[in-house]
Structure formats: structure tokens, C-alpha cells
């Protein structure tokens, strides 16, 4: 990865890190901390073997392995995996929108920062974070890990995104819902520009799997206000046919359409008990994220 430190706004990371994300719903996990778990005392998950070194607890030595190999290996457990969180980032063409009018950060840049911020935050409180990139299908899947070094993997994954393809969120979610651990957390970052897809059905499916889902709806101001002037041929970033028109003629109608789109999505989320966060890329990311986390914190029932 090149210049990952530059790619990600360190200011964002530091400011966001002061806030801790607290899952509201009960999540499986044993680790002591601020997370409450329904399964207190349940065994932690095996992570990997490690050579024994003095100071390690003897009860963690795998005697079966020692008997076979004559070497002492210590079983290591995912102690920090009190929350497994999979961040699902839409890497379809539409997310690659960057405004020709001003030099604001492209949408994907914003989404990347958002994901990085969230990942860092979760990792800092020893939650496991995974990253899945998708368009028509899953492009890349980084399984959730809670190690601090995992952040680098995630950053790598984020840095390598090149937006393209169409969004087929239903298919992707349908496939993923089987693979995601139950009672984990799913953060879905997308612009939700999906055509002919029953988004509500997929959301219901996720909800039924006991997943806590947070939807980050990222839109560029251009996509909300359509501020263009003159005769413009709009070429799709996905596979829609190009359309030539004067935005002035349809501006009002478009604004209504996009607002309907947003409110419908919000309504759907609320209907299935999911969090919906609308993010306008013109707002500073830390501000938007802080606002959301504070909101969640206020909802916590400790």
C-alpha cells in the first residue's frame, strides 16, 4: 500500500478513536469490558498455536500436540473477540463518483475514511473487524480479526479498491448472511443505488439472523441537489444507458425522487430495527461519525 498514512486522515482517526463504539444489542463475547454478553462464561474461540515460553499458563499447553510432536505448544484464544463486526463496503461503480464541479473528496474516498475510522475504533476496543468489498459479487473478503495489526490488512483492502461494476446488494447479502457469524455486527456502507432489487427483503433476512446491522448511506451533495447547468450527457458509472438532458428541467423532480429514495430506505431500516445513518460527503467525516456514535452511546442500557 502506498502512502496509507496520507490516504487516511489521521485527524479523523484520532478524533474518532476518543469515542468508543458500543454495541447496543447483546453480542456474544466473553471479554470483560464495556460489552455486555448474553453468554457470559462460555468458552472463547481458538485462534492459533504458539510455542511455549516461560510465563505462559501451563493449562493452556495442548498436551495432545505435545504427545505427538514432543514440543510444547500453547493454545491461543481470541480473547478480544467480544464483537465480530463485518464491514460491507459497496465497491460498485456508482461509489466511484467524484464531482466535476468541485474538488471535494470523491465518494469512495469518503467511504474509505469512514470504514477506516470505524475499523480503527473497533480494533482499539479489541473488537474483531472484517472487511468485505462487493459489487455484483463479493470482490474481497477480509475475515474479522481483533489484532491491532489487522488494521493494516483492512487498510490494504481499502486502498486497493477500484470502484466498478453494478451493485447487486441483494445477491451479495443473501450469500453473506449464511457465512456471517450469528449475532455479530454488520456495517453496510453504500450509496444504495440499486435498481430492481428488493432491499427490504435482504434487510429482513439479515435481521432474522440476529445480526445487528448499521447502514451508512453515503451520498455526494451532487447526487442530492443535481447542481449541474447546461446540456449534459450523463453517463452511468454502472451499466445504465447514458441520458442527455438539461438538469434544470428535472431538478425539482430529481430532488423529490432522491428524497423519496432516502426516506424509503430509512423507513425500511427502522421497520426491521436497524440503524440508518445518512452521510453527506460534504459534512466532515468526524463530525458525522461522532454524531452517530454519541447517539448510540445515549441509547446504551448499561
Amino acid at each position, binding site marked *: 500500500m502506498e502512502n496509507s498514512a496520507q490516504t487516511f486522515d489521521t485527524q479523523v482517526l484520532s478524533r474518532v478513536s476518543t469515542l468508543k463504539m458500543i454495541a447496543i444489542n447483546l453480542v456474544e463475547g466473553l471479554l470483560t469490558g464495556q460489552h455486555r454478553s448474553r453468554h457470559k462464561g462460555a468458552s472463547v474461540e481458538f485462534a492459533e498455536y504458539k510455542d511455549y515460553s516461560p510465563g505462559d499458563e501451563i493449562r493452556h499447553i495442548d498436551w495432545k500436540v505435545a504427545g505427538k510432536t514432543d514440543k510444547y505448544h500453547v493454545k491461543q484464544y481470541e480473547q478480544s473477540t467480544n464483537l465480530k463486526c463485518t464491514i460491507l463496503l459497496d465497491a460498485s*461503480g456508482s*461509489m466511484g463518483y467524484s464531482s466535476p464541479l468541485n474538488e471535494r473528496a470523491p465518494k469512495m474516498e469518503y467511504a474509505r475514511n469512514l470504514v477506516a475510522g470505524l475499523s480503527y475504533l473497533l480494533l482499539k476496543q479489541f473488537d474483531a473487524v472484517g472487511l468485505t468489498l462487493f459489487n455484483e459479487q463479493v470482490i474481497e473478503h477480509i475475515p474479522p480479526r481483533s489484532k491491532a495489526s489487522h488494521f493494516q490488512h483492512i487498510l490494504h483492502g481499502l486502498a486497493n479498491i477500484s470502484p466498478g461494476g453494478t451493485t447487486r446488494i441483494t445477491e451479495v447479502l443473501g450469500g453473506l448472511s449464511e457465512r456471517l457469524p450469528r449475532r455479530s455486527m454488520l456495517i453496510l456502507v453504500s450509496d444504495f443505488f440499486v435498481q430492481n432489487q428488493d432491499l427490504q427483503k435482504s434487510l429482513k433476512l439479515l435481521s432474522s439472523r440476529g445480526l445487528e446491522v448499521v447502514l451508512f448511506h453515503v451520498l455526494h451533495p451532487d447526487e442530492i441537489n443535481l447542481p*449541474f447547468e447546461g*446540456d449534459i450527457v450523463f453517463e*452511468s458509472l*454502472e451499466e445504465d444507458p447514458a441520458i442527455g*438532458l438539461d438538469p434544470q428541467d428535472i431538478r425539482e*423532480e430529481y430532488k423529490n*425522487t*432522491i428524497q423519496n429514495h432516502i426516506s424509503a430506505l430509512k423507513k425500511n431500516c427502522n421497520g426491521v430495527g436497524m440503524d440508518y445513518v445518512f452521510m453527506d460527503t460534504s459534512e466532515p467525516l468526524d463530525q458525522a461519525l461522532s454524531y452517530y456514535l454519541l447517539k448510540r452511546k445515549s441509547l446504551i442500557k448499561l
Partner: protein
Amino acid sequence: MSLNFSSPLFLFGLLGISIPVLIHFLTRRQQKQIRFSAVYLLAQSQKRSIRKSRPNRLLLLLARCLAIALFSLALANPLFSFREAPLSTDPASTVFVLDDSYSMGIRSTKEKTLFDHALEYAVKELQDAPDSSEFSLILASSPARIEQDWTSNKAAFTNKLEAQAVSYRTTHIGEAMDKAIKLLESAEQKKKRILLMTDLDKNGWKEETFSKIAPLTSYPVQILNFSKLQSADNKAMVQNIQVTQEFLTRSRLLRVKAEVKNFSSTINRMPLSFFLEGKLVKEELPDIRPGQTLVQEFSYPLRRNQPLSGKVQFSEDSLPADNERFFSFHPSQNIRVLVVDGDPETIPHQSESFYLERALNPFSVSLSHIDPTVSTLAELPLRNLSDFSVIILANISELPQGYELELEKFVFNGGALLFGMGDQVSPKYFNEHLGNLLPVKLDSLYHSREDALHLLLKNNTHPVMQVFSPKALEEMKGINFYSMYTV
């Protein structure tokens, strides 16, 4: 079919098409291409949007260009002529019937008349005609005449055509057509036709003359109407002009009476100018009601007795020829004298007036510059006193009833009045009726019974006497007077 333009200069207006094209390209909002995420939402919005999108700019451009093109073409005044295949290889015999009547002089533009257009057309037709075609020319102004018999010499015929000019005559199309048909009978080529170039002025088309032309339909007649090219109406004309000289006034007056007619239906006032010797002397703005005729009088003091020429002119309209009338006038230098004989005799030399006339004009008018006219009392009311400078009333008893007022007016206007005394004169009548004119009051008639009376002529300083030489004065002393009136 061919297309000509009467004012082809206006075709440069077609260049104006470049203006909307330029505007189109300059103001063309650059059709940007934007890669956008929610194109399907745009499409949905467009479908739902009630507001129609703006008219296609290309269509708008086309409409603008078309408008300019049509405007230019309209100004250029296209002439469509449906001629029979001008490039046909068959030679033909063509009679050009050219209407050279006065009305063809109407202008289409500042420089060109309808006649010029007709000539141009004819020359072009001639050039387009195949070799060994023959042509003839008939002028249709009344009386119609054959100007050129059949010829195949294009150059000569073109010269002939170009030498023609508008006449001051009316049109006689019927007669011209009759002559054209007769000419065609002697034509050599199989293909024969008549080309009539006219302005279709009404007075040239007399039905009775056409009814006499029987085989008119046997030849193709192509009528070219040039009247459409007329730029404006003929608004007015100077119909007539009359020049008179007035002798009565202290300075002699030239009176020019112009009869002007207003053809327009709306304009009342048109400037009418009076030129003398090429200089604008006077300009009037007579008020002539539409369709009416008015006599406008100009007067000009005559200072010299040289011949004069001038004109009366209207402001310009489409037919300039009738807007002006010229005159030339030689003012008379002579003194016209009216001798009224109150006692005429049947034998001329027995009348006193006979001798007076001889005395005034002994040899000829050119020598004495006095032009006497003898009249009797009865003829007096028929005379126009303003034609004379001097009136001599010789031995009259009574003037016609109320005529003394005429005489007073005559004297008042500068005329000279001389009374010749005689036996007919009644002092009572003279004192009563002509008292205003007489310098003295007449008393009674005095007869010298013994010797004749003579003039003394002692004091000859009076200006009247200056003209006489001393010898003449001596002679005058010898004149015998037998009676006189006392005052």
C-alpha cells in the same frame, strides 16, 4: 423553370445565415459529459417531469437560418419563370413583344425601371436560345410597330434591344399581338412563340382588339408581367403647366400655373418645387386631397427680358417621369397698348384710332417696341386688361356699366391710362364716373372760333417733355387746336 432575382444584391443577405450559426456555436452550452452515479434516477425523473424539455437547439437554429434565408430571398424579389426548357436544342422563332409604354418607366429600384428589367430578361433569353433561332421585335406602345424583322444575328438583335427606351405613349397590346402573329406566319423555324413583356397596365388591353385576333391560340404566348417589381406607387404627377406674363404690375410678373394630381390614397401634402434656370426658386407644400387635382401658381418677378426655362417638380415616387414638367418662355419686351376708339368709322383711315395706331407703331413692333391693339367700346369687356400695359381711351362718351372699377383696378396694379379728349366726351360723365382716375375736374368745352390754339411750351423741365428733342418741340408748337376743355 428558371429563377431570376430582380434585386440580386439582397442575396448577400444570405450571408446573414452565418449569424445564427455563429450564435449557435458561440452560445452553445458545451455539452458536457458527466459520469454520474444515479443515472437511473435521472431517467425516472425525466419520465415523471411534466415540464417539457426545451426545444431542440438544432431545430431552433434551423428555424432561424430559414427565416433569414427567406427574408433575403423575399427582398431579392425572385422571378420564377416557367419557360419551356430554355436549353432545348430546337431552334425557334421568337417574337419579342416589348411593352415600351410610359408605365414601363416605373422604377423598381433607384436605378432600374421595369423596362430595364424587361430588356435584361429579353437579352438573357436571347443568349440562352440555341443557334439558328430567329428573333423579331415588336414595340407595343401605341401604335404598335415592328422594330426588327426576323433575324438570326444575336449580337445585332441584342444591340437593337438595348437601344430601346421607354416612350411617352400608351400601350396597344392587341395591335402588337396581331402584328406578332402575322410575323410568325412568315417565320422559318417550326417552333414558334410569342414572348410578351409588359406590366399588364390596364389601358393597353382592349378587348375588342383581341377578339379580332383569331388564331391567337395557335402559337404559344408567354406573358411576363413585370409590374410586381414596382417598388412603390406612383403618388403624384404634374399634369399640365401654363406660363403667362403679367404686364400690369410695377415689375412684370411671370406666372406659372401647374396642374398637379395626387394619386395616392393617403398622403395629402407633397412638396412641389419650382425651378428657374436650374435653381430652386420656390417650394410649396400644397394640400391636395387624395385623388384630386389642384392648380398651384408660382409667380416670379421678371427683371430681364431674356428667355427663361424652368420646371415644376414633385418629390420623387416610383414613376419620376411624370413628376416634373418643363417650360421655356420668352418674356415679351413690348409695351402692349389698348386703344379704345370711342368714335370708330367704317372706313379705317377716317377713324382717329387709325392714326394713333400708326403713330404708336409706324413700321413694326420690333422697331418701336409698342404693340397697339385697337378696340371698340363694345369689345372692351371682352379684353383682358392684364394683357396690356397702357390703355388709351380715345374720345369715348361712356364706358360700359361698372367698367370704371376695372379701370381703377388696372391703374392700381400699375397700368397706365391715357384719356384722349374729343367731341364725344361728356364732362359730366367723366367727373361723375371717372373722377377717381382723372387728375383734374373737367369744366366745359371751349371752342376757339377765330384762330387755332397753340402750345406754348415755355417750361420744358417736366420729365415728360425730356423725351422730345428741341426740334420736335418747335414742331409741336405748330400744332393747331380748335377746341379744349377747361378745368
